[in-house]
């Protein structure tokens, strides 16, 4: 708790969720809530940004007499997600090296 999530990380997590399964806004929020405290209104600008960046595309699917907007990842989105994942791995490693003293021999501590 208490660690803030920045926009890039949020983008990456949304891309990852959509990559697993085409899904809709409400479900994405519910899924993200497992990890971060986020509301539907935080998600909307993220989805919009990813759409404008052509990383997600949408299509409508009928659900109980109304249309539900589903999101699907584009090839560009897949590439970008891969980059995010790579970046996250190296970021995580650096943080862990300090916070958890992992690989401390490289830290030149005495």
């Amino acid at each position, binding site marked *: 708790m208490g660690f803030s999530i920045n926009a890039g990380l949020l983008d990456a997590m949304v891309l990852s969720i959509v990559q697993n399964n085409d899904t*809709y*806004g*409400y*479900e994405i*929020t519910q899924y993200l809530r497992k990890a971060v405290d986020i*509301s*539907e*209104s*935080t998600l*909307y*600008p993220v*989805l*919009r*940004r990813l759409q*404008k960046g052509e990383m997600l595309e949408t299509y409508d699917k009928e659900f109980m*007499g*109304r249309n*539900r*907007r589903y999101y699907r990842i584009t090839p560009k989105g897949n590439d970008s997600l891969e980059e995010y994942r790579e970046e996250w791995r190296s970021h995580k490693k650096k943080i862990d090296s300090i916070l958890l003293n992992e690989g401390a021999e490289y830290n030149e501590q005495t």
Partner: protein
Amino acid sequence: MNKLEFLTRLRNNLERGGLPSDDINDALSYYEEVFLDAGFGKEEETAAAMGSPEDVAVNILRESGIHVGGAPVMPPQRMGGPQGQAQGPAMGGYVPPKKKASGGSIALGIVLGILTFPIWLPIVCVVVSLLFALIVVLISLVIAFFAAAIGLLIGGIVALTEFPAVGIMFLGAGLILTGLVILICKPAFSAVIPAIGRGIKRFCGWVVGLFKKGGKENA
């Protein structure tokens, strides 16, 4: 705050911020979906969880690169709609100068509408009556089909004992008609009625929005 109020206030704020109408509709359909997915009994809860529609609107506008008066704003990073100038930070709200005219033009439209009323009233009456007649005719046709189907089915069952061949023919014809009626009715019920409902809802939202806007400008 219920769904309608939330969406109306959101729309008003986005319109005032000068967001292109495509973007406004996109945002509104997203938020409407959120309410629907959250479930019917949870409108208040959902609205509360999302924060005030004003804040939501500010975030959306900011994301589209529109300056919003009051809170500190990052430089616009991307394309987006017309750039409203930040002004009057004292209010904490934002009233881009451009959009003010629209209140006036709506008022002008209403005045014109009233003045030309002898011309359009008869036309509207005629169109509405024609539509009504058309709907009534269609409904009567369906009812007639349905009645014929029931008649044939009952007649068929009655005739079955005395003239089996005739009875079977009646039954067959009755089943065909029943099938036709169901085929005609199903799309009507699943598509037309929700569409009318949505239309009425949007109209109400628009009217409420009109009054709210007027009220704020006068204040």
